[in-house]
């Protein structure tokens, strides 16, 4: 994690909170007040002994000063500002806000998440009412029967001198229809009662899957070795994070894939090879598997062994079907991701995997290493094309040619001899200017 440009602001904030004068702090740390002033205005870099000394005097963890609030919290704030389309939000000062009021910031992000979940619930319910075939059928049945009863009964009441055979016939029809109506109403009530109880808290199945996989750290020791299909089923059955049937099915598919990958690339040997050389393409060669399998396997290793790993997969429509989050690379939850991600590029040329460094706009100058590859998951027929899926593995960028802060104006510039591509998260919260891939205006007015 590189030192942030905001260290000075946090020192100043902390100092004011503790009621210490600038000159006093400088004296106790053993630096000149003017030098401390430059530090506090983020105009001098600070590290090592001076930082430790200042942290000591201010009685805070040095990490709190050097790293500030978590990147995830800041990303959450930006997302909240983006989706609320709020006017006058100081998006450029999100980091400062998160650093100064971490509790409030977390509350805001939590509330935003909760609002999003509730919105999805409303959407799902609306959708259910409008498009639920069972409900539509039941209602149609009830309305048809009511129509017949109404028309028939008014004939009986309004027609003078109705012949007895007609009278009998219409009486019989009403009797028949009223019975149908009773049944229809009953099944409607039963259905609505049932609907209210099942999947009470409606998250998207993808959200549930992510919660389930995250709770297990994306690693399932029970599925390593020669686990049978019943092991995967038992894990899914016992998972509390999986509420809906749809999510359970997704989870079962994910675990079956895990089991197949684990059988092909046994854990012990993978770890041994990774220690020798962690390059995913080498792993693919050693085990004679394709790149997506090697990506998935690496993304299924415990963090203690493999370090930070992110993986994001999509289908041919660009919908994200799998996410293992990566702390320095944000992935949108429901909105469309940035079209510049190599993840989408490999769908156009499935035989050409890509490896490049990515710098996500609005997230400082950090870069990550992205490896993208596509696979065919179902062959083409004369009725439909082959079904494709793309995967992008995100790894920490180990090359050292990092740019100095504030020098990010030229995009796709070569750093340390290798190209860096500037990408976003999703358009609404992306500060990239004059981006040809933009599909909706950004609410982030200025670059960070």
């Amino acid at each position, binding site marked *: 994690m590189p030192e942030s440009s905001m260290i000075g602001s946090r020192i100043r904030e902390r100092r004011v909170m503790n009621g210490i004068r600038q000159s006093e702090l400088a004296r106790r740390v053993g630096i000149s007040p003017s030098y401390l002033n430059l530090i506090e205005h983020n105009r001098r870099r600070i590290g090592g002994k001076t930082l430790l000394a200042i942290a000591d005097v201010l009685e805070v963890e040095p990490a709190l000063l050097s790293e500030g609030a978590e990147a995830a919290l800041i990303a959450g704030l930006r997302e909240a500002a983006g989706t609320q389309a709020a006017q006058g939000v100081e998006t450029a000062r999100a980091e400062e806000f998160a650093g100064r009021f971490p509790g409030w910031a977390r509350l805001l992000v939590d509330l935003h998440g909760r609002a999003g979940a509730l919105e999805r619930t409303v959407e799902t319910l609306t959708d259910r009412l409008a498009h639920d075939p069972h409900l539509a059928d039941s*209602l*149609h049945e009830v*309305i*048809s029967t*009511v*129509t*017949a009863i*109404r*028309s*028939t009964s*008014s*004939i009986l009441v*309004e*027609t003078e001198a109705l012949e007895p055979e*007609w009278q009998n*016939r*219409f009486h019989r*029809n009403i009797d*028949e*229809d009223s019975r149908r109506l009773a049944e229809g109403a009953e099944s409607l009530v039963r259905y609505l009662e049932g609907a209210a109880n099942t999947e009470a808290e409606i998250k998207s199945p993808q959200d549930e899957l992510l919660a389930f996989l995250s709770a297990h750290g994306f690693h399932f020791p029970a599925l390593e070795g020669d686990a049978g299909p019943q092991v995967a089923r038992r894990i899914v059955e016992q998972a509390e994070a999986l509420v809906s049937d749809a999510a359970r099915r997704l989870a079962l598919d994910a675990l079956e894939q895990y089991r197949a990958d684990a059988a092909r690339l046994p854990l012990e040997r993978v770890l041994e090879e990774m220690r020798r050389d962690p390059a995913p393409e080498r792993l693919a060669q050693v085990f004679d598997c394709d790149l997506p399998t090697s990506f998935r396997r690496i993304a299924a290793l415990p963090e203690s062994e493999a370090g930070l790993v992110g993986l994001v997969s999509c289908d041919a429509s660009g919908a994200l079907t799998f996410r293992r989050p990566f702390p320095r690379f944000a992935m949108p939850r429901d909105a469309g991701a940035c079209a510049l991600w190599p993840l989408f590029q490999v769908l156009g040329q499935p035989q050409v995997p890509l490896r490049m460094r990515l710098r996500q706009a609005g997230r400082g100058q950090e870069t990550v290493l992205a490896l993208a590859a596509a696979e065919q998951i179902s062959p083409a027929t004369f009725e439909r094309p082959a079904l494709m899926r793309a995967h992008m593995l995100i790894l920490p960028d180990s090359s050292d040619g990092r740019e100095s802060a504030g020098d990010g104006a030229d995009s796709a510039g070569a750093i340390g001899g290798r190209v860096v591509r500037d990408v976003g998260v999703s358009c609404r919260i992306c500060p990239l200017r004059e981006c040809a891939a933009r599909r909706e205006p950004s609410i982030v007015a200025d670059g960070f």
Partner: protein
Amino acid sequence: MGKRVLLIEDEPNIIEAVSFILSRDGWDVKTHSNGHDAIDAVRARAPDLVILDVMLPGKSGFDILHEIRADSDLSGMPVLMLTARGQVKDRELAEQSGVNRYMTKPFSNADVLEVVRSMVAS
């Protein structure tokens, strides 16, 4: 000789009730109860008016209306549509497809008579 009406509806007891009230009003009523070949029935019967349900087995009332309007002999045929849903979307769809009038189920017999009479008189 009464005016001829063709009722395209799949609910037997609605067919019976509507046929009854229209017959008593002096109409010559013919009925047809599926969507597949409804257009053939319209051509064969050549009625003065078509009463068309939206939800039919085989083909929707909207599709049948399109077929009627696409046929040069039938393009001027007065069509009364019966829809179970009073939804704006259905009404818009009906109007775009060139319906003359529509009624929402459940309807009153008096309304049916009044609308049907006005459609053929005009």
